[in-house]
């Protein structure tokens, strides 16, 4: 059974990531590198220039307010 490294990393660090609520987080599960910012494109650009890894993951950390909004599943009309 394949339990992927990035999922394990997110589970283990989700609590710590909550302080970046509402921001984008870029992380590399293999190196433990984490960066955060309001702009995804800026984060990806800085990762490319610093060459932190060839396979970073990006994730928008939801805020408590975003999670409390009434969730409407997207449905075709």
């Amino acid at each position, binding site marked *: *059974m*394949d*339990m*992927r490294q*990035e*999922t394990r990393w*997110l*589970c283990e660090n*989700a*609590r710590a990531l*909550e302080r970046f609520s509402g921001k*984008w987080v870029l992380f590399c599960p293999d190196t433990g590198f984490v960066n955060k910012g309001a*702009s*995804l*494109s800026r984060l*990806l650009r800085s990762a490319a220039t610093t060459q932190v890894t060839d*396979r*970073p*993951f*990006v*994730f*928008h*950390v*939801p805020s*408590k307010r*975003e*999670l409390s*909004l*009434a*969730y*409407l*599943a*997207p*449905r*075709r*009309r």
Partner: protein
Amino acid sequence: MPTVRVKRQTPPNLYQFPYVKFHGKFYPLIPLTLSREARTVNTFALLDSGASISVFRPEIAEALGITRKERTGTRLGSAGGGVDIGIAKIRVEVGKTSFKAKIGFSKAFAASFNIVGREGFFHKFSICFNEMSRTVLMVPLEDLD
């Protein structure tokens, strides 16, 4: 003596994704890779069997170089009426399974998480949500023959 064919018990690719806890609640998030031409984004999305299509945050479309003009407009239903979103066909990878799927981009629908819905996705996998163990099990259907 007749030969007995033993069926393989475990499919070669069985993915186990534990739910991720944010602000006290658990969510079935899966890692996936979206790519278009030379651009690739690795991210996570909420697996939602109640959603008919997949909707991601618009910043992902920008990172993939998908302009607004390249997105086909469609109207999605919601309790408060309808919301127009742009849809583009892009390559999706989950584990070793790769396929093209239509993905919509909208901040209104993907306010908290990117959403993976049924269309173009759920017919590629056998998916089991286990609420007791808070785990999603996914097996690519191509591996179940």
